């Protein structure tokens, strides 16, 4: 995917570029409103990551411009302001997701993957990693053509793992992805463990390789090099 990153904090922008580049995306970063408008007019992108507070303008204006020009691209807002109004306004003018800073790169990546699926396959697609196949629009998953009976949380977990395959995924980012902000992380770690244990058992039962690896003290890794 070709991604435009509009974020005035250069170090943060660099982190996003680094993370997404290793995922095989093509990233371009601009640090202000002017630059963003210029890039959007000149080039085509699949997705834009937009910070709302830019030194010379508002990210919301950029999104409005994109939508006015009928450019079809996925939009993820990243903002330091976590107010409901901002969130609603952002989503109303056509953003796909609204992430509050500080966010987890793995979470950003998972959202990008779902936008990618929506844009490039119009939803009719299947994700295949080794012996696992997921049909996102139907919320179904298969191992070697046998359907996995998953709960909603387990399904979300599997999708999040696949989106961030071969990477260290922290427990905290998992917790926030699955339960949002409201759950205290310490509480949710226990449930993550339970849900992961169940998911792993179900995968193993259908003869799948043991991809879910525990990274001691940090979290997990969906390691496709195993097996």
């Amino acid at each position: 995917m070709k991604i435009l990153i509009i974020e005035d904090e250069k170090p943060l922008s660099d982190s996003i570029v680094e993370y997404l580049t290793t995922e095989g995306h093509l990233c371009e970063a601009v640090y202000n409103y002017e630059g963003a408008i210029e890039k959007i007019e000149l080039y085509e992108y699949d997705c834009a990551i937009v910070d709302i507070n830019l030194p010379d303008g508002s990210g919301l204006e950029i999104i409005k411009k994109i939508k006015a020009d009928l450019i079809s691209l996925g939009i993820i807002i990243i903002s330091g302001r976590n107010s409901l109004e901002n969130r609603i306004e952002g989503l109303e003018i056509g953003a796909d997701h609204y992430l509050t800073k500080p966010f987890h790169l793995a979470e950003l990546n998972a959202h990008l993957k779902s936008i990618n699926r929506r844009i490039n396959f119009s939803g009719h697609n299947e994700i295949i990693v080794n012996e696992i196949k997921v049909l996102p629009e139907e919320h179904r998953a298969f191992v070697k053509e046998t359907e996995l009976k998953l709960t909603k949380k387990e399904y979300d977990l599997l999708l999040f793992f696949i989106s961030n395959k071969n990477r260290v995924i922290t427990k905290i980012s998992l917790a926030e992805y699955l339960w949002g902000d409201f759950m205290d992380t310490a509480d949710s770690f226990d449930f993550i463990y339970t849900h992961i244990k169940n998911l792993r058992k179900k995968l193993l039962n259908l003869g799948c390789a043991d991809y879910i690896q525990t990274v001691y003290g940090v979290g997990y890794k969906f390691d496709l090099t195993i097996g």
Partner: protein
Amino acid sequence: MKLLTKTTLNFLSVTLFIFLFGIVAFYFLLREQVDQNINFELEKRKQSILTELNAVGPATNLPPNPNERVVIHMLTDDEKSPDIVYADTLIFDHAQKKYIPFRKLGFTATYNKQKAYIQIFKSLEESDLLIIRIFLILTLLVIVLILSLLLMNRITLKQSWKIFYDTIKKIGHYDVNNHEQFVLQSSDIKEFEDLNRVIQTMTNRINADYINLKEYTENASHEIQNPLAIINSKLELLLQSSDLGEHNYKAVVDAYEASNRLSRLNKTLILLAKIENRQFPESRDVNLKEIINNQFELLEDLLDSKKIRIENNIQTNFTVNMSPYLAEILFMNLIKNAIRHNIKSGQIIIQQSENTIKISNTGPESNLSSEDLFKRFHKSSESSESLGLGLSIVNKICEVYQFEIGYNYEQMHNFTIKFKQ
């Protein structure tokens, strides 16, 4: 003691003191004056008697006067003539059957070549009556004067102090969080006007400082989000690299966890500031049963892990006018609290009576002080992972909407919220 009472008492004691002494002194002065007058009259009478005695003849010719008696006592030659003397005396009056005060003048005169001791008695009854009347009238006058002065003073002071008491009351209810304008009544008394002006200046300054501080914290919290995002993303990237030694890896993990905790803390503080500043969507009628059931659904994992049974006895049509967003946060925190401090296989019961909702949990008995409970960063010792901000968010929301929140322990830990009607 009220100032008014004190001044009244002082006023009364001084006036009574002066009044008592004055009245006594007045009485004696008056007495003195009257006596002098009578002496003068007696002297005049003496002269007239002397003239009459020498001119007219026998004393019996003297014209009778009920208030006056003249006693002539003939003296023998060897009797010594008494000195001329004024004196007070009592004489029994047979008609009135009582002693009547008289003033007498005794003197010697020569009558028919014989020495006679003449005493003139003049009744003091009338003059005494006069003194008493004057005395009574004056006393009455003074008392009326004192009373009316007192009354007028009280009324004036009460009027003036009204403003003072109003000011006191307003300062007593002063709340920096209250967004209403702090206005004091103006007074025609300079002192009170000065007081009000000083207080007004002071509260204005407090308000300005408070708003400054709040803006500063809010801005700081928002500005912290960016660096935090950078730290988090860099640490996340570091965690992906395989060439960190075990030692460094542990350090990165610790830093990552700490920065995440800081993020949560910061987000919560921003939320608290937002509630304080009333920056949340508009109020509407919120169905609480629905809201609470939604929270139970969201917290399903938490409930299941402790095998907690729930009971939601709120009427299906019970609504409260508030921001739905804040209603969610309110009950999310209360229910989370009820789960966290519950025992395994415990119970959460939510009951409603009129406009009060009671959330009870079967947590182990402990001595919680309901005052500390709602303070920021208050933590019970057992679960140190929580930020200790949940209940202070609850408290803040209740404060904004003027709901009454309470806590007590009766076999269960009960949190009650009394909603405003």
